[in-house]
């Protein structure tokens, strides 16, 4: 068994494309345990063996492994390789909880620690990442000022939160999903004078982009000088289902239905 796993790992290292199939084999073998091992050995080694012999061999292997594990867990704790083979003196701990509990002790930083603190003092903390929100920020960004765009969206969502008292990120994602059209209309011509509008399906990302564009467009008609305030108002009205984006989506869909016969042109 151990040999098989090593073998699978080796194969994976040599030929990554086959790694998936092999590891699948290993997984299925271990789930069936000893009964299936013989078949598996036969399939891997290519040599047929006697079923009983293979079974006894596999059982012997499993028992040997169990013994080996028991040696490494003296207090009858569950077997954890990361703990058992850790260097002497190390232990499991939650760094945050330990830091909070340790506050009572007096702490004297060394000169090296002070120097490190001075070096890192002014470094900003890495922002949290949300893929959708990062995308929306990217769309807003102008002239490479991404931090400013991030602040605008953050402020807008803060205002939305103050008015709804619910998670604004969830609400915004829901609105974008609801507002995004399923298709767009593409102008198709075969080189002649006639041209037709043909409906084309949109990917999830394209749908979100279209909805976000409509929200930004509508927010531009708001009164405030702060972009974040204008944006928050538009997001809020979209949450309430009043944004013009929804009408635009219906219009696009209607046009697509009218022109559905032209889909065959693209084939």
């Amino acid at each position, binding site marked *: 068994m151990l040999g098989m796993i090593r073998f699978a790992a080796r194969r994976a290292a040599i030929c990554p494309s086959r790694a998936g199939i092999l590891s699948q084999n290993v997984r299925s073998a271990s789930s069936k345990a000893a009964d299936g091992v013989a078949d598996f050995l036969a399939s891997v080694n290519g040599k047929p063996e006697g079923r009983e012999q293979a079974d006894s061999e596999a059982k012997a292997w499993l028992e040997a492994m169990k013994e080996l594990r028991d040696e490494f867990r003296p207090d009858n704790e569950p077997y954890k390789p990361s703990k058992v083979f850790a260097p002497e003196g190390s232990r499991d701990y*939650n760094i*945050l*909880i330990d*830091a*909070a509990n340790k*506050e009572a002790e007096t702490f004297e930083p060394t000169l090296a620690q002070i120097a490190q603190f001075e070096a890192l003092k002014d470094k900003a*903390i890495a*922002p*949290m990442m*949300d893929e959708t*929100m990062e995308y929306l*920020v990217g769309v807003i960004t102008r002239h490479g000022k991404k931090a400013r765009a*991030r*602040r605008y*969206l*953050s*402020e807008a*969502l*803060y*205002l939305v*939160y*103050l*008015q709804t*008292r619910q*998670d*604004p*990120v969830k609400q915004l994602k829901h609105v974008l999903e609801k507002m995004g059209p399923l298709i767009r209309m593409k102008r198709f011509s075969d080189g002649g004078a006639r041209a037709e509008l043909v409906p084309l399906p949109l990917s999830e990302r394209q749908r979100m982009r279209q909805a976000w564009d409509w929200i930004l467009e509508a927010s531009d*008609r*708001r*009164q*405030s*000088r*702060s972009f*974040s*305030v*204008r944006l928050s*108002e538009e997001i809020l009205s979209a949450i309430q289902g009043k944004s013009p984006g929804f009408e635009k989506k219906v219009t696009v869909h209607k046009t697509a239905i009218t022109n559905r016969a032209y889909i065959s042109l693209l084939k």
Partner: protein
Amino acid sequence: MYRLGLRGFHAGSVAAFKQKAKEQTVKMRTPKKGSGEYRNFRRAAAYSKFSKSASEVAVGTENLRIFAAPDLETPISEPSMVVFPDAVQASLVHMADFQPQQNNELFLQRASLLRDESSQIQNILKQASSSEQRALLTGPAGSGKSTLLAQAHAMAKLQNWIVLHIPRAEELIDGSTDAVASKSGAVFDQPMLSRRWAQRIAKANRDVLTSDDIKLLRSSSAKEDPVGSLTAFISQLENGDRPVLISADSLNAFVKTPFAANRSKENEPIYHADLQIPRILLDFLSAKRKFKHGAVLAATSGRIVSNDTIAIGLGHGSAPAYATPEEFDSELAAKLQGIREIAVSSFSPAETDVYLRYVAAAGLTEYSPELVAAKYAVSGNGNPRALLRSCVSFAL
């Protein structure tokens, strides 16, 4: 050449263009067409009454309690979230103690955390001469200096003190109000500011001032001679024995711009201490003048970037040679000597725990010991403002 060109061939088209341009001129600073909020983000958030929709934290529980006059007798031993009685709270509003950047709109109640520094504030408000009870709150941005100032005001109000507070010292010197040379010529009077400050004092201290005081501050004669009536009021307090707390926020505005934006008749810039109201404040701060019973309290602002004048004045380091007034103001530093410094630090883990329990009770986050540890680390080891914003900074 240019003129000839105008009169020559192109004259007609230029004239037409000019006319067109004139028609198309849009008047600056007119609101855009469209509906909705017209204010900027900070104002829209702070002044749209959003706190009304916040959930209430039950008073009298371990998360929040009322801090009343009897609580002043006992020293503050452990951190707790408190809310002040309504009458006191109203005075704090008049003194502009709740500021837009404090994110108060997130909560229904205006609670604050009593902590180590609060007990130092409590010690200052003892029955002693104001020359002995002078303190300056210093600390990084968002560490709670203005909140501690508000606590000082509340504690003073609970003991029936008169509170004279200047919420933004930068307004005294930014040239947004007038400065007129006085008859003696030594000081520049500030009539507009005197009037405004007198009204603020009268409103915030309605319960402790006598009718004569109110008359002095708010009558029609006070409107005609605001400088005289304010001066008379303060010298009355100086000679009487009523307890008075005089305080100012963002004192480092004087350090950043030692000379006010106002100018004298000779068009020379005016040094901040030559203006009437900064002079009153600095006289009490430097113990040149004093109240028999009282205290002087000031705070620096994290928003205003200033030089080392205040630190040197408080005894941290020595004055640099060859420095310009913009780099080091020796006069102001001399005035700060002998002042007690209250260095406001970030929350300790225990204080963070109490604060986050309150924030969780208000429905902004979910409390757990892991969250306390994580937020403590994320907020730069317990910076109160960063702590609150980390609980509500969405997505980013």
